[in-house]
């Protein structure tokens, strides 16, 4: 949960990018890191395997400016998407305030998206959190692949598979090209801030 420091007038918020392996979670953060370089004072932390896959998590603090006199520090995390790293994913989810679910639009990854979303629901439950209540944004990534003739899932199929009950805001995106990466991030930040405000009242 977000930590509000009344002495330093600072709010720290934790947002986690979740989703199946090779779905583009790290690419989202890399794009943000390059695009908003002036707001990020440190290097992006990435703990990777030798094969360049996320092993533990990526981490990037992001200064959002002030809200009601408080400095808002957004902490962006990714989880390792590979199935075998479930214990690590659970660790990263601890204290999460908002989630971006990065789904892979590739037709062949349909099952993997569904499994990963179920896994998110289970892992949130270990912290007594409900996927239906936590701020959540869906991102259907890799839309650029359709231009190369690679079969991708339609928006309707993705919505039906992943979002029919959750009804979270969703974006068609290409993390590689930066399409809707910032929009996804802005949406989740707004949702988290609104939920934080409700909690404080």
């Amino acid at each position: 949960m977000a930590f509000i420091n009344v002495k330093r007038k600072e709010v720290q918020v934790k947002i986690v990018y979740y989703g199946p392996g090779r779905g583009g979670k790290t690419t989202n953060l890399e794009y943000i890191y390059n695009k908003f370089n002036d707001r990020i004072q440190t290097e992006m932390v990435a703990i990777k395997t030798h094969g360049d896959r996320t092993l533990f998590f990526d981490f990037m603090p992001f200064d959002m400016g002030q809200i009601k006199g408080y400095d808002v520090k957004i902490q962006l995390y990714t989880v390792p998407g590979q199935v075998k790293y479930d214990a690590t994913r659970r660790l990263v989810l601890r204290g999460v305030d908002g989630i971006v679910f990065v789904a892979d639009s590739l037709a062949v990854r349909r099952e993997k998206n569904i499994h990963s979303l179920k896994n998110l629901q289970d892992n949130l439950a270990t912290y007594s959190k409900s996927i239906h209540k936590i701020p959540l944004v869906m991102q259907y990534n890799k839309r650029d692949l359709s231009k190369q003739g690679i079969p991708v899932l339609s928006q309707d199929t993705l919505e039906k598979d992943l979002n029919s009950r959750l009804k979270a805001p969703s974006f068609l995106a290409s993390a590689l090209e930066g399409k809707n990466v910032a929009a996804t991030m802005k949406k989740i930040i707004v949702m988290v801030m609104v939920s934080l405000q409700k909690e404080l009242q």
Partner: protein
Amino acid sequence: MSYTFDHKQLDALEEVLQQGLIDLGVHCVVLIDMSGNIIVNLDNGRMKHDVYSLAALAAGNFGAVSTMAKIIGEDEFSLLFHKGKKENIHFSKVMKDFLLVTIFGKDVSLGFLRLKVTEAVEEIKKILQSQQ
């Protein structure tokens, strides 16, 4: 887990860490929660560490080590310490949800540091519990 600290508690925490550790030669202390949020961060004025990344990694590292402990049948490992050429890091759990990260140099011995950290942790517990 949900918690808040008032101004008085944060002042008291800073005082304990300043007098109990920084004034004795420790380079930097960071009190964090297990989600990686920073509660208090103090240093000797000469450190320029990226404490936000440090906090995220320390929380992740501690979580990973705790899980390893459970796998081999331990509740947790009591000493968590990384030794470098110039700087060392010591981690100490504070109650269930917090972690005290201490960075110190060659001029402070590990035994002395552990003693002082234990004393500080006791004081911190009293302050944190005073919120309930």
